[in-house]
């Protein structure tokens, strides 16, 4: 028994390692949260499960590469790039919504899925045509290239920025949704779009705006992740699966759920590599399976009649 504990949990005696894993998990959670919250937002309002959300994230990374080259040399280029990349993806999402997505809000889910899946294929080929097959490196600002010591554990400065950005975005989202008129409209639309339309709101416009905000969040996540993963084909597929795990565990449409499930999935990976390196990769899926069996509407989703 003691030998078992020593073998699998010996790392607990090394507090700086525990801290390092905890921090790297938090940083991973921030990317997941940015992507999953956009996915969840769009679903909550329009009931569209947007398969192409990962593609928008990938385009965020590619636009980061393009904008940083356009802006080369100007002061604060990295920060301006983050804003421009998010906006570009938001506009892209808006165009997709106006031309295609709004035609299928009332269609059968299977058709919605087919359409957004088609986006995945088309967008991945477009990305290859514009940016080529090789990974595109996006430089970090010099000041963020190193690492800082947090209680003796080294932590990349850049990931600190990511954590700050994730928390900042979370806070802004909360203020927007619970403290502004627009947020009230969005929450009302989640409840009943027909009632909202009957009360004279411009519902189609609201849906477009929501789609743009969700896309912009994916774009921001892509632009933020670009400096540590390079913008490359295939990013779309890898993130979308994890994002779906997060929204299923957290509950579709729930922000708090997306935030906590992101943290759960990321920390499971971080500590799973210490305890059971051989099976750490399936832990998140196991959790998803358990949640689906016992609480199919997710940990924080609303069970609707």
């Amino acid at each position: 028994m003691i030998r078992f504990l020593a073998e699998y949990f010996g790392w607990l005696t090394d507090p700086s390692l525990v801290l390092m894993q905890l921090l790297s998990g938090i940083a991973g959670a921030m990317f997941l949260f940015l992507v999953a919250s956009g996915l969840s937002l769009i679903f909550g309002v329009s009931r569209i499960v947007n398969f192409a959300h990962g593609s928008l994230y990938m385009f965020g990374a590619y636009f980061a590469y393009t904008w940083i080259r356009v802006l080369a040399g100007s002061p604060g280029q990295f920060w301006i790039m983050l804003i421009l990349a998010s906006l570009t993806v938001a506009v892209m999402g808006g165009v997709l919504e106006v031309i295609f997505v709004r035609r299928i809000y009332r269609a059968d889910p299977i058709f919605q899925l087919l359409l957004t899946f088609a986006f995945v294929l088309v967008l991945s080929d477009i990305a290859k045509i514009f940016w080529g097959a090789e990974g595109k490196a996006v430089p970090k600002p010099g000041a963020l290239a190193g690492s800082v010591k947090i209680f003796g554990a080294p932590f990349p400065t850049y990931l600190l920025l990511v954590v700050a950005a994730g928390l900042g975005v979370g806070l802004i989202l909360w203020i927007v949704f619970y403290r502004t008129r627009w947020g009230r409209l969005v929450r009302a639309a989640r409840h009943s779009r027909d009632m909202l339309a009957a009360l004279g709101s411009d519902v189609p416009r609201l849906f477009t705006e929501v789609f743009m905000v969700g896309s912009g969040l994916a774009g921001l996540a892509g632009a933020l992740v670009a400096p540590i993963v390079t913008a490359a084909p295939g990013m779309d597929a890898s993130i979308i699966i994890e994002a779906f795990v997060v929204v299923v565990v957290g509950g579709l449409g729930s922000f708090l759920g997306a935030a906590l499930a992101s943290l759960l999935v990321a920390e499971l990976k971080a500590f799973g590599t210490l305890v059971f390196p051989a099976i750490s990769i399936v832990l998140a899926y196991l959790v998803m399976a358990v949640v689906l069996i016992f609480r199919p509407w997710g940990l924080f989703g609303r069970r609707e009649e």
Partner: protein
Amino acid sequence: MNRTRRAFRVLRVLAAVLVAGTAWTAVPAGPAVAQVKALRVGVANSYTGVAIPYTIPEKEAMLLAVEEINAAGGVLGRPLELAFRDDKLRPDLGLTNLQELVYQEKVELILGPFSSGVSLAFADWAKQHKRLFIATIAATHRLTNEFWNPYVFRVNQHVFFTGRALARVAAKLPHKRYAVIGQDYEGGRVPWDAFLEVLKKEKPGVEVVSQQFPKLGETDFTPYITATLAARPEAVFVTLFGTGFQQFVLQAKPYGFFDKVQLIGPYSGRPDDHRGLGAEAPEGMLLNGYPWSADIAPFSSPPHREFVDKIRKRTGNWPVWGSITGYIAVKAAAAGVTKAGTTDNEKVIKALEKLPIDTPLGRMHFRDFDHQLTIPAWIGWSKVDPKIGEMTLTRIQEIPAEQGLQTKEEILEIRAKAKK
């Protein structure tokens, strides 16, 4: 409609699509333009995720070879034509692709795959269907050892070769505490086994302190990096490749990874792996690779320089290792058919076993007992070359195939053991 039920219907469909996941990026075949029946060659490969930095340039090099062959009158008077398929690194999809290529696209020869995992499935299929394939990148040595049959050919060096070459250099270094990080599949695990087997023989007292195998397609390596560093290894063997390697480097740098440990890698000296990093690539890594710009033979030879220029002209970029394997595979296939005078696969096999294969990197041949091309390996230490803005190797040692590959006796013994 009940919204929750509807949502879960969507999720169910989604799961089904994820599982089925067919035709993510099917690559269309080139147009047929000749009156004579074209000789169709199927390329069963991976054009997804981590494979892309290898296989998209490889496709360009294949098309270049086809153009050259067709400009010179084709093969047996027939124009060559390629049909591409993407297996997404999945053996099951790879086998579906083979069926499609042979029975719908009517291809007469097969090139590929990229993935070691897929290649083992191909070996079995090839034997059953009596169809030869020339593996391009797939590098597990088991393909040409215990899983081999006469229908299997391979261009790339295999990982026992590169692992052994690296282990011999590593054995002379002072490091004793070793760790590994690699993708969780054949191509990530087997090189490590091969490396460790030889290293332990050459250097007693080597200790393995950490083994991390994240899933194929993972992009966040941070927890694996910190867990590995916490085990305090002196050297880390890294079998991540393609975009995976690039991501790993970007995430490992802030932890001072490359100052703390000696990185050793069987793949990462290839531009396919490091070009995405540009001048950010770490220096001092011990790697097997393709230092295409090196000022030594065979890289400085006129045929190779000419090859580099042709690729540059066609794609706007320098070649990668995939360019070499793809180009050689097409040229070898054409040479085999020309020599045999037919596409009858049995006769092409016999022809390929005897033919010298002229490549941009010199003359080579397929060994008759394992059909492994005698392509050498180049081991060196990474160094950024400001002239080309990317990493290359210095203190390069060329390891000839005869020194790196197992002998006929060794291989026959491995196969006999595997039968038992």
